């Protein structure tokens, strides 16, 4: 045969895919197990990001509903911080600040509430009694689970509205049968039960009576201890600045102004810290998964020396061999990555739906998960692929 032009070795891209998947197709259990490591890591990261996004969305919706324009004015307590009471005229003064839309005061009543008059007086159940304005519910944006709130008529009579925790401790769930409670040596009729307050959890453990009733039946002098203030949302900060001096012009330093929605945001910030922690754990799982793939690939190269030798004999270049094993590692990682994203989304969906949250998985989470899987596959496959390609054909075939 005469000398002739020699066309170079070529491996069609679609054939590269086929050869790279040989190992996966012929060793399914091993491939599945090594992909599992990546899958768990990706699933953890996707689920953590998805859950944190979903819960954040839930919180934002809650904040939206409750408003971030609620402020509380409280008298400071403790040495040199005053009596725990605001000046009598504070509520009126605060209401005169222009952007303030509504105010509602409460004052702590020196009384306890019991289920019956037989309960020893020490067993207060941790329930406080508060004298409140009739517009409290409206100002706080709260809801009732049963009955009605105090109104102008009932506020002057021995009637009481229970916070959610207080109602549970007194064993009262609804008001259809006019339950009575023993409040400060007197029977009070329960007219309503409140839902949980997200913005003022202290009211959950309180029994609320009208100011008139407190003065008449409980010998209470209605000097407010806290004032709830709704402002125009655009001027919240301005109102916060002027509130202390308005509420107590003599001793503005004794006034504490807070924004209850900050507490919710702080709670969210705390859960963000956990999100970071779990993301870190997911990253570790991912790393371990990557090492697992590298390990399996190294073993695979050792086991498949004969195949490597055969492929070199059939005309594969070093690069073809390297591409085959690198491709196999990438495929393994990609299978794990896709499985992990599906699992993570599934976990998010299940948990979010049990919590009544919207199911939100950020694009960054699933796209980033897949990208991370591919990068890990590439890194994990590089060394085994180099080893496979450096094997000389005769050495590879010398296996009997």
């Amino acid at each position, binding site marked *: *045969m*005469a*000398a*002739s*032009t*020699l*066309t*170079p*070795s*070529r*491996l*069609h891209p*679609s*054939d590269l895919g*086929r*050869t790279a998947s*040989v190992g996966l*197709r*012929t060793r399914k259990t091993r491939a599945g197990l090594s992909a599992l490591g990546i899958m768990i890591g990706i699933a953890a990261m996707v689920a953590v990001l998805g859950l944190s996004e979903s819960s954040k969305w839930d919180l934002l919706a809650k904040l939206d509903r409750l408003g971030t324009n609620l402020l509380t004015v409280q008298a400071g307590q403790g040495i040199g911080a005053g009596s725990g009471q605001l000046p009598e005229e504070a509520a009126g003064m605060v209401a005169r600040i222009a952007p303030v839309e509504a105010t509602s005061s409460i004052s702590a009543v020196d009384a306890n509430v019991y289920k019956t008059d037989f309960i020893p007086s020490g067993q207060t159940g941790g329930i406080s009694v508060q004298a409140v304005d009739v517009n409290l519910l409206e100002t706080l944006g709260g809801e009732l689970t049963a009955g009605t709130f105090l109104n102008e008529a009932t506020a002057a009579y021995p009637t009481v509205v229970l916070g959610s925790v207080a109602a549970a401790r007194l064993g009262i769930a609804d008001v259809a049968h006019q339950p009575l409670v023993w409040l400060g040596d007197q029977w009070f009729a329960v007219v309503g039960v409140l839902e949980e307050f997200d913005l003022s959890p202290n009211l959950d453990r309180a029994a609320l009576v009208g100011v008139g009733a407190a003065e008449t039946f409980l010998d209470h002098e209605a000097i407010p201890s806290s004032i709830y203030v709704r402002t125009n949302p655009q001027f919240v900060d301005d109102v916060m600045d002027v509130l202390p001096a308005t509420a107590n012009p003599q001793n503005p330093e004794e006034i504490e102004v807070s924004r209850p929605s900050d507490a919710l945001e702080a709670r969210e910030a705390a859960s963000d810290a956990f999100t970071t922690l779990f993301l870190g754990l997911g990253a570790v799982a991912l790393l371990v998964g990557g090492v697992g793939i590298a390990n399996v690939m190294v073993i695979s190269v050792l086991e498949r020396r*004969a*195949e490597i*030798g*055969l*492929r*070199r*004999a*059939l*005309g*594969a*270049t*070093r*690069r*073809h061999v390297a*591409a085959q094993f690198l491709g196999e590692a990438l495929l393994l990682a990609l299978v794990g990555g896709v499985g992990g994203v599906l699992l993570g989304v599934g976990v998010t969906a299940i948990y979010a739906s049990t919590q009544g949250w919207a199911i939100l998985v950020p694009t960054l989470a699933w796209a980033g998960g897949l990208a991370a899987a591919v990068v890990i596959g590439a890194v994990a496959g590089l060394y085994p692929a180099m080893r496979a390609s450096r094997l*000389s*054909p*005769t050495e590879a*075939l010398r*296996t*009997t």
Partner: protein
Amino acid sequence: MTAPALDREAAPLPPGRVLSIRDVTKVYPTEPPVHALAGVSLDVDEGELVAVVGPSGSGKSTLLHVMGTLDRPTSGDVVVAGHSVNALSDRQLSSLRARRIGFVFQQFHLLNGYTALDNVADGLLYSGMRLYDRRERAALALARVGLANRMMHTATKLSGGEKQRVAIARALVGRPAIVLADEPTGNLDSHTSDSIVELIEELNAEGATIVVITHDHEVAGHFPRTISLRDGLIESDALNGSGRR
């Protein structure tokens, strides 16, 4: 992934010469060094069927690896299908093997997860031919070695003789200039072995150039030309009078 074209490495050979080896030595740098080939020269012409015999350790396998460009000689030159091994890069040698050389191994080296058809089709894998065309050719090659009814069987379900037929079909499917067979009957019983030798003779009769390495003088005796190897040197290179043709 392509290697550069190889025109410039083409070396002239007499017409009809497929393989030419000149003063080839191969020394393995162990302690002490092993002189596997101590100066071997031989030519193989188109259409020849050559047996290389010798006891184990005589350098047969090394000679096959050098002839098949799987290994480079320590000194001397190997010219396959007009291309001098010394002038080619590793990638170019791969191209040479992909298009001009077919291999048959004692251990068959089939891919177990693949069907007989796809094992044969892989003989053309690195030629860049598309899967459909490779399978078409593979089916013809399998039919030629008598396995038309076994094409869709996976390699593990084939007998030893069938496996070696698949391997032979794989070596021939690309119509290489030369087929190198390393102990093709070494793992087979004598009956199966005879049928494989018969197949090799038939394929040679149809025009294939084949070099068979064997330690079995009975197998070698069937072939027209026998080269005896001992201690890395050619002991004899003779046309075999008792050959069938």
